[in-house]
């Protein structure tokens, strides 16, 4: 196994709110290897986006703050970098694509100037050279008629095209890591697959790693090599993607998989959502945060917090009862 490209260790990111301190990311550790596709999954508010923004150094402060932990990228601790050096990495060695293609592009700047910008910042390309490269990038992400597109503004493009532009922008300087934060959530299902295929293509061409943040388990199954499942700010299970579906070891993962609607289910059979609700992050239950919703919960779960432990090669689970859960079917 090659050395991991990205090592997140014991990351804690907190937000100060009126309701108290929210531990949006609470002791999260995972690694992304060079060239692999790693997916972070979980419900809204579980901390997956905050994890991505922490890696990018884009946590708005105040109210947010990375309180402890380390994020090692290609051997360098990003959290200890001065802001100027972090800026040199953002957009050049780590690219990021955001959820909202409609609002993530600047409405008053042309596609050309927005695409050429990272090239001008990081590779010191002059205006014309950067613009030529920008045109190539539009071709690369499969948007026809690049010469016209260059002069257009974001509102003249469809959602899918805008997300392609975002990918082109994020890939402009051939980053080693591309982070896609819910990049396809706002798109039509058919466009989603195209955009994901495109991200897979462009990253595999350059050998870049891809960190996909999603709540969609279908995407995970189709694209990811490895998966981290997050709940209430903590990683609950890290696993090879195929293994996650075959052998979920965490009750939350089991619940997630069961709540996915299936085409092959009997017509009229009810969905089985996870009982209960996501806890308030300012007021988490004692012990394991999932225990009020967990059918396997024992007394220990209500007192102590389980930590992420390796249960077999390539699989880590944070659950006291994972053996029982694994045997459930």
């Amino acid at each position, binding site marked *: 196994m090659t050395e991991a490209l990205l090592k997140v260790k014991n990351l804690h990111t907190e937000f100060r709110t009126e309701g108290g301190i929210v531990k949006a990311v609470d002791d999260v550790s995972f690694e992304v290897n060079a060239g692999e596709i790693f997916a972070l999954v979980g419900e809204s508010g579980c901390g997956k986006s905050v994890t991505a923004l922490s890696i990018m150094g*884009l946590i708005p402060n105040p109210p947010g703050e990375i309180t402890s932990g380390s994020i090692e990228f290609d051997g360098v601790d990003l959290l200890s970098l001065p802001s100027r050096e972090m800026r040199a990495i953002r957009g050049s060695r780590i690219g990021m694509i955001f959820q909202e293609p409609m609002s993530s592009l600047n409405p008053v700047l042309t596609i050309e100037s927005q695409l050429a910008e990272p090239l001008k*910042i990081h590779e010191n390309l002059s205006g014309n050279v950067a613009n030529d490269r920008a045109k190539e990038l539009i071709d690369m992400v499969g948007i026809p008629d690049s010469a016209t597109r260059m002069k257009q503004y974001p509102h003249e493009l469809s959602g899918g095209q805008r997300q392609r532009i975002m990918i082109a922008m994020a890939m402009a300087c051939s980053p080693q890591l591309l982070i896609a934060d819910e990049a396809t959530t706002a798109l039509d299902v058919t466009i989603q697959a195209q955009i994901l295929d495109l991200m897979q293509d462009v990253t595999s061409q350059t050998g870049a790693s891809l960190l996909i943040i999603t709540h969609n388990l279908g995407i995970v199954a189709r694209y990811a090599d490895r998966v981290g499942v997050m709940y209430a700010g903590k990683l609950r299970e890290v696993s090879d993607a195929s293994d996650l579906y075959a052998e979920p070891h965490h009750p939350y993962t089991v619940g997630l998989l069961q709540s996915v609607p299936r085409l092959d289910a009997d017509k009229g059979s009810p969905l089985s959502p996870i009982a209960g609700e996501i806890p308030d992050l300012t007021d988490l239950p004692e012990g394991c945060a999932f225990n009020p919703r967990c059918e396997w919960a024992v007394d220990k779960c209500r007192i102590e917090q389980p930590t992420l432990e390796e249960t077999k090669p390539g699989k880590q689970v944070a659950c006291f009862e994972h053996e029982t859960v694994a045997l459930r079917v």
Partner: protein
Amino acid sequence: MWRYIVQRVLVSIPVVIMVGIITFTLVYVGPGDPAAIIAGDEATPEILEAIREDLGFNRSFPVQMGDWFWKLAHGDLGTSYFSRREITELITPRLQPTLSLGFQVVVLSTLIGISTGMLAAWKAGTRLDRNLMVLAVLGFATPGFWLAFLTIWVFAVNLGWFPVIGYSPIQDGLFSHLHSLFLPVMVNSILASAFISRITRSAMLEVLREDYIRTARAKGASEFSVFLRHAFRPSAIPVATVIGASIAGLATGFVLTETIFAIPGLGRMLVDAIVRRDYPIIQALLMVVAVVLIGVNLIVDILYAYIDPRIRY
């Protein structure tokens, strides 16, 4: 774009007519008999009647108004009751002081307002930001005439840096021209820039929360570039609106300013005309102000399309 401009100009014709009807009516029904004022204290009823006959006051209201509009449409603003001279002729020498004052105030207040507003947004939440905004609140809470008298007292009377009153036309030298207008320009600019500054700050802070600002940061753009290149233009729409509105405010503010600083501009001319009940001048000046404001609004609307490519006419 040209089609839009022509359309807007055509649409503003009824607006100008409405303003004309309202001003003419207001002045017509207003108290005071111009004939009595023209004739003086010792006029006999016969003299008053002769004056009324001579100036057409005996005709019916619709006829008087129709006559006024007819002349207006031919570029004739009428004749002053007092000097018996053409109003266009009277207005011409009055244009320079007012236009020069207006131009300087708009340029200066825009520069001061936008730069302090951006500085406050850049340093949002700091002591500098709070101090700037306290100044801005003071700025638009301060009555213009009070600030005018204060500056005259400090800078003209006590320090003697500027003339207390008086106006020096551009023909007599640019420096003495600017020098003579310095205090009124400063007073009006400080007041107008306060509002522009606050709006700039809040518009910038709002835009800085947008997703595309995060995208710009994710590209590795410096904070300076995020601020000027990515955030300023999208926040310029409300700022342009406020600058347009402050020009409208200046139109009334100048009545006061020109009176206090004894500047022979249109504002003073209006005050003099009202005191003398010189109706044709009042009506003509109100029409001029209305047309200027319609023009300013049109320019602001065209600016919108330039600032934001999503706006097309």
